[in-house]
């Protein structure tokens, strides 16, 4: 199954992350995407005024795995240890709608044609929503990179944007994959290391407490928001079943009723998906971003640990009066690294906070406005329907009454 998005949909696709950088020297977007079975092919389009690129305007096809390669490459670059690397976009997950589609196909015999069509439409809308989401998330990843003063100049990033052949050759570096596996194993101990380190800097002390606490809370909120959205979708599905049964029930003159139920369905589905987009996605995105910030703290903690180790080594060397110079050198390096990380870390974390606040604000406002809009539409729709039904009922009863006499 293939599906594409067009420009009008792009307008509506609102991003959960906001860039505070208004620099237009490097503009990236994903205008097009193709979904083939399990693979999604993104068309990454770059418009730039920078001389480091060969052309001012170009597009390349990329797969999800290419994005992951880029992310990992950035994470493993030593120089960027003091930066918050934007979280990698999650793998496109069409599992849920696909499973539902499968179940729908199995249950086709038990439903009326109309019910089946409506359910199918809803599922297709869900499928499309997942698709739009994944495009958005990949786009945001690239845009964060392009707006970062240091990361935007990264060589790998440039290759990603420009290289007009398949990147998979570069990707299949066995050593890298092994390295990242090891890294993941070690990362799971990061919480322990971060909280264990004695902090010398107030700023970082605060940030550490805040991030650890916030991270667990936001994980919790995300999970519950997801549950809530799922319930909403269930209610919408029920409305479909009910409206189709009402159709087959010839409760006199129920065209208006059919419209009513369908509208309720539509609205419930809309509310569910908007809530999903604004609230749940927001929480999900920031959950990952907070993890990235924690990674920064982790790396800094590592350098601090290294520094302390080098201090101990120096003391030992001094005691033994052996290889003192080397130990001193080592200690200096560690200190430098630590300071560099602390400095850039501070900058990053501050801008991260600003970004987060702005993004929350934007999404919360938009969600509230959408909820109001839907409720108003629903209200007028239902009121209209009540009037129609009332007048129908009057006429009907009058006719019956006459016949009765």
């Amino acid at each position, binding site marked *: 199954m293939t599906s594409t998005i067009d420009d009008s949909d792009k307008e509506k696709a609102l991003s959960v992350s906001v860039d505070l950088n208004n620099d237009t020297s490097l503009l990236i977007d994903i205008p097009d995407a193709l979904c083939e079975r399990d693979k999604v092919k993104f068309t990454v389009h770059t418009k730039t005024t920078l001389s480091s690129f060969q052309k001012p305007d170009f597009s390349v096809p990329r797969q999800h795995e290419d994005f992951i390669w880029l992310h990992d490459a950035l994470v493993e670059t030593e120089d960027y240890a003091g930066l918050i690397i934007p979280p990698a976009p999650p793998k496109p997950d069409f599992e849920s709608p696909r499973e539902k589609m499968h179940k729908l196909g199995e249950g086709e015999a038990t439903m009326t044609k109309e019910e089946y069509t409506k359910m199918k439409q809803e599922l297709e809308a869900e499928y499309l929503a997942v698709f739009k989401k994944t495009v958005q998330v990949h786009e945001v990843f690239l845009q964060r990179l392009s707006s970062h003063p240091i990361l935007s100049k990264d060589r790998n990033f440039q290759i990603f944007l420009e290289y007009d052949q398949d990147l998979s050759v570069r990707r299949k570096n066995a050593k890298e994959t092994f390295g990242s596996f090891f890294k993941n194993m070690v990362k799971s101990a990061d919480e322990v290391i971060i909280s264990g380190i004695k902090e010398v800097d107030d700023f970082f002390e605060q940030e550490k407490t805040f991030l650890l606490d916030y991270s667990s809370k*936001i994980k919790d909120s995300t999970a519950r928001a997801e549950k*809530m959205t799922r319930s909403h979708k269930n209610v919408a599905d029920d409305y479909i079943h*009910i409206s189709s049964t009402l159709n087959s*029930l010839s409760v006199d003159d129920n065209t208006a009723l059919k419209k009513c139920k369908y509208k309720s369905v539509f609205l419930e589905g809309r509310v569910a998906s908007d809530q999903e987009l604004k609230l749940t996605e927001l929480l999900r995105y920031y959950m990952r971003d907070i993890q990235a910030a924690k990674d920064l703290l982790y790396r800094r903690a590592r350098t601090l640990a290294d520094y302390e180790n080098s201090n101990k080594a120096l003391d030992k060397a001094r005691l033994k009066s052996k290889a003192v110079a080397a130990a001193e050198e080592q200690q200096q390096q560690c200190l430098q690294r630590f300071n560099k990380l602390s400095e850039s870390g501070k900058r990053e974390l501050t801008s991260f906070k600003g970004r987060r606040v702005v993004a*929350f604000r934007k999404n919360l406002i938009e969600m509230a406005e959408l909820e109001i809009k839907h409720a108003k539409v629903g209200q007028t729709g239902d009121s209209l329907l009540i009037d129609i039904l009332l007048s129908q009922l*009057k006429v009907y009863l009058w006719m019956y009454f006459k016949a009765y006499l």
Partner: protein
Amino acid sequence: MDLSKKTFHWMMTQRICLQETACYTNAVTQEATEEVSLDSPEREPILSDGPSPAITPVTPTAMLTPRMGLGTAEMFERSLDEIEEDDSGDTFDMHIAVSDPEKVGDGMNAYMGYKVTTKTSMTIFSKNETTVRRRFSDFLGLHSKLASRYLHIGYIVPPAPEKSIVGMTKVKVGKEDLSSAEFVEKRRSALERYLMRTVKHPILLKDPDVMMFLESSELPRAVSTQALSGAGILRMVNKAADAVNKMTIKMNESDAWFEEKHQQFENLDLQLRKLHASVECLVCHRKELSVNTASFAKSAAMLGNSEDHTALSRALSQLAEVEEKIDQLHQDQAYADFYLFSELLGDYVRLITAVKGVFDHRMKTWSKWQDTQLLLQKKREAESKLQFANKPDKLQQAQDEIKEEIEELEGKVQQGEKDFELISKTIRKEVSRFEKERVKDFKVVIIKYLESLVQTQQQLIKYWEAFLPEAKAIA
């Protein structure tokens, strides 16, 4: 086979009705009861003009055109009752309320007593307002009397609410929890609907048992309604026998109307059951939604607490509050889903069973008539055989006997035919009345339900509009 499927369906309906539901506040119940029990003095001048079709439809139009929220439903209720005049000239002005459930006694002999208040201006009743106390078995007793009297001649007697051993045991044992409170509320509401449906039937209303039920302060205990009593067992045996009979009777239907209606009711039965199941699903999911919304609200509040940016923290707490209120809204909506929609559907599923029962009685009447006719034919043959027999001494006696029997049978055949025609006529009237009621009931309930939806949406708008400035204030 078809029979077992039907029995299974019936049993499934019973089970669905026995399910427990979530808690709904009494306040909302009160509101619902009050709205329905409006007895406006304004109606009197309109009604006293006598039933005249020219006047009646015009007035509702004038009253209903300015649409304003729930007020319209009230006015609509009144105009509906105006239109409900029966052909006896006595206008239908009656309202029954079942309220104040109170536990009487203790232990396994305890029961729930309900207050039944009848307000009416009809002349056949001795007082304008009567209050009596009744228990559940009294209602069942009333129904069984009416059923035995009217069902077999073709009247659709509204079925009484079902017994629930599980539910009642909880109440008896004294479990003062949510589910037993809901059970009592569900039963109270069902009893009220049952009584209203019964009295709306012009024939049943005038039945002396009904009047005694509504008016007399003491009622003889209806013992035969107990499940394990002799009468109860007899009922079960009869039901089984009926089921077997239905399979064996092959009626050649001469009247296309009956054929059509029978089919129609079969379809309706299926559809209503399906709809009932869907609505119950909806109630379930909406309750789930409310639970999930509440849990999200809590976690959003905690998130707001740990957020160090003050304005954002405040906004998140506000969001948590909004979601909490929305959760309450969802609960109320689920309540409306249930009480308005689901219970109505359950009532109609049972009513249709009664309708089908009436059709079956007609079949039985026909069958009896046919059997009597067959017997008559046999006797006639026996008579003519006798004439060629060779026993002159016994001949006269035997001939006289047979002549008597034949006369008797001829009378019976005539009666059988009359019975059959009568029941057919009654059923036609009943079915058309039933259809009228059904459409009205459904439309009214759907309108009420839509109004509850509209209210919910209004509330949603209010909440989100209050939240918006908080979100905008994040700096």
